[in-house]
């Protein structure tokens, strides 16, 4: 289905106050977010944060306890059949069959999706070429490596040319080469205008691929925005790497006397500082004060904040305030 289909003006994914409880355990606690069409969105959180539960509801495989979830404007609970034609789901544990080759596996799912005759053969051929599965056509599916299996699983999810791809931890357990190949495939799909909703607990994996990141923790969304906005953080501080001629202890002593500077960690001749500002004028003033204090600065370089650091910072702020932060 393309953008001219039902609900063409609606976002690809629309979640409103979604709850999912299992007896007394609240796996998802009133989350709301929207994913625009054609975007690649990373869904990030620790194990047990509620990623897979949310994705299963999105894939019509589970039900919300409360709230609504729509794919291209269609409610996933009331119209699961219609939603299924719009989504391609790739679970974290891909399923295979005994005594079945790669080709037969794709043929089964193509038949099950309603493809007949020449059209079926053509779809299978397209998918196999796209995922580079042609050389593996006669390989038994339960004998594939993890990387090959993930390619097969992606191929299966693409058989009906879905508008929205839901990928749950697709790179988990893959070797670096397979990971690069998978990233490449996802990038091509994104360029072709598919909406990709991809989960992981490895931030660096998503950084290069995603337009925006959604952070979930203990069933609540704690951040929704670009990786850039996440790096900038909410505290308005910046991190600098400083090299001196003097020993690193001198830098620590100087930082302790300056309230707007925090010493993070030291090296033999320097260390890392966190400055409570992102304004160039303020940073320039601090550098001048450092030199005026007698420190011989040989290098003063702003470091890009790691996403992991930013995530941990957000978690720390939540713990301190008890209020979720959603940008």
């Amino acid at each position, binding site marked *: 289905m393309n953008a001219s289909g039902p609900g063409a003006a609606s976002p690809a994914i629309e979640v409103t106050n979604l709850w999912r409880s299992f007896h007394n355990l609240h796996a998802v606690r009133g989350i709301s977010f929207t994913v625009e069409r054609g975007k690649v969105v990373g869904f990030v959180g620790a194990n047990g944060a509620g990623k897979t539960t949310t994705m299963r509801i999105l894939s019509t495989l589970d039900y919300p306890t409360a709230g609504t979830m729509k794919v291209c404007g269609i409610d996933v609970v009331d119209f699961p*059949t219609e939603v299924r034609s719009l989504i391609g789901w790739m679970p974290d544990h891909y399923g295979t069959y005994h005594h079945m080759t790669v080709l037969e596996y794709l043929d089964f799912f193509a038949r099950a999706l309603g493809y007949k005759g020449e059209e079926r053969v053509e779809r299978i051929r397209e998918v196999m070429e796209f995922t580079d599965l042609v050389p593996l056509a006669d390989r038994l599916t339960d004998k594939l490596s993890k990387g090959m299996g993930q390619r097969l699983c992606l191929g299966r999810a693409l058989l009906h040319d879905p508008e929205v791809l839901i990928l749950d931890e697709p790179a988990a357990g893959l070797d670096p080469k397979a990971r690069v190949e998978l990233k490449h495939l996802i990038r091509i799909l994104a360029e072709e205008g598919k909406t990709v909703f991809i989960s992981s607990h490895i931030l660096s994996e998503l950084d290069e691929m995603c337009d925006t990141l959604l952070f979930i923790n203990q069933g609540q969304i704690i951040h929704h925005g670009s990786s850039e906005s996440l790096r900038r953080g909410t505290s308005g501080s910046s991190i600098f790497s400083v090299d001196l001629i003097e020993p690193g202890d001198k830098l620590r002593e100087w930082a302790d006397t300056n309230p707007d500077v925090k010493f993070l960690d030291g090296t033999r001749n320097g260390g890392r500082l966190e400055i409570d500002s992102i304004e160039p004028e303020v940073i320039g003033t601090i550098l001048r004060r450092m030199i005026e204090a007698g420190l011989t600065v040989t290098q003063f370089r702003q470091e890009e904040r790691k996403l992991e650091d930013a995530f941990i910072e957000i978690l720390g702020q939540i713990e301190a305030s008890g209020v979720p932060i959603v940008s």
Partner: protein
Amino acid sequence: MSSANSASSPSLESRITDFSSRFSPVLVKELRQGMRTNLFVIAFILLQTFMILCLIAGIADPGSRDADGFFWFFIIATLLVVQPLRGFAALSSEYQMNTMDLVQLTRLNGWRITLGKWTALNAQGLLFLTGVLPYLVIRYYLGNVNFVTDLVALGAIGLGSGLMTAITIGSSVFKNIILRGLLLAAMFFFAASISSVLSLTVFGTRGRGTQLESTLLFALAGIYGIIFFLSFGASRISPLSENLATRKRVTALVFVLIAQLFHFFGVSEQVFVVTCIILGLALIDALTEPLPIFSRVLAPFRKHPLGGLAALFFSPGWISGLAFFLLSAALLFGSLLLGNTGISGPDFKDPGDIVLFLSMCNVILFPLLIIHLFFSGHGSHHFTFGVYVFIQGGLFVLTLMIIAIGNALSQYEDLIYLCTALPSVLIYAENEAGADSPLHLGIALATTVLCLGFPLLRQRRKVREFFAALKSTPLDNASPAE
């Protein structure tokens, strides 16, 4: 996805067009997998070997009963035991291999999945049967064989194999292997008991009709059993927002109505047994269904003027299951009255007849009372059905114990009377332990009211939600487009 360049191997097409697109995808998949399994190959070779041995024995000693016995033993063992048992993990293996979710996201619904698996196993069973046919023909030429009787027997075994396979596939939906094994044993026991009861009534001397009509009725019950057990599995792997309940209940009623036609052929006793089996199975399923309240499910009922009334009996969930129970009881009552015109049976002028009728109904309802008393918090489809079966089994054993202890005591009537709150004990008391029909009638009526009223009272919030949803489901929810 980028368009394919069609330079790939031309043999790709020939490798996946071995089965026509018209075949069910599950059938194609299961056949491709099934024919490669060792069990199929070994069973086929063993059956052929034993057939040859039986044939040699038949040639060496024409008219030998032993060779004849072995011949049928191997066919029965293969088709009624080995072949159905291959369906033992048919659905649970999909869960184990993490493929059930993937299959559910295709256009295959639960019914097509279970039917495909059943058809594949029976297609392989048909291969076994076809492989046996030449030996059947050769035996005919060796003499002492009635070819028609053999073919009828083979047909009956084929139907039995289909039923057994449906039972194993239906119960394979339970992931726990112990629970699955116990349930399968219970279902096999149930099927065997029913078969023996039917055999007695159909092929015995009690029926007044011809054997052909009785056999057709027997086949009708078998076909319903196959549909029921496949639907049983299908409804448990389908999303709750898919309504399979209406079709299941309507199918049961259609089969019951067809069975009623046999009253006119003078086989009313068999009709009663078959009606009880069909309604009993349908009711156990209906009464243990969870209660999903989805506008998708209720909206189609609101399109028709009498849709609200239809939803009361045929929408999914145990609340409508109770209404369906009342409808079924009325049908059974009608069936008994209809049967009474042809044979001597209950005319319901005697209170004892009403006690027996109510107690039979209460036997079906009673576990529901216990479920809503102790397990009302569990909404799982699997759990409620499992608990129902075990409660029913427990009550059966308890009844046998009470009767046995009661008979061992000198004043056994006291013990029996103390336990007449159990419907099965009341049936025994009414039949055997001396008639006190007015008291029994009071107990039976009170039990019926309690069994119907308590679940509704205990779950009154859900009952209110159900009726509110029935009245307020907007019709525009029937369309997904916004």
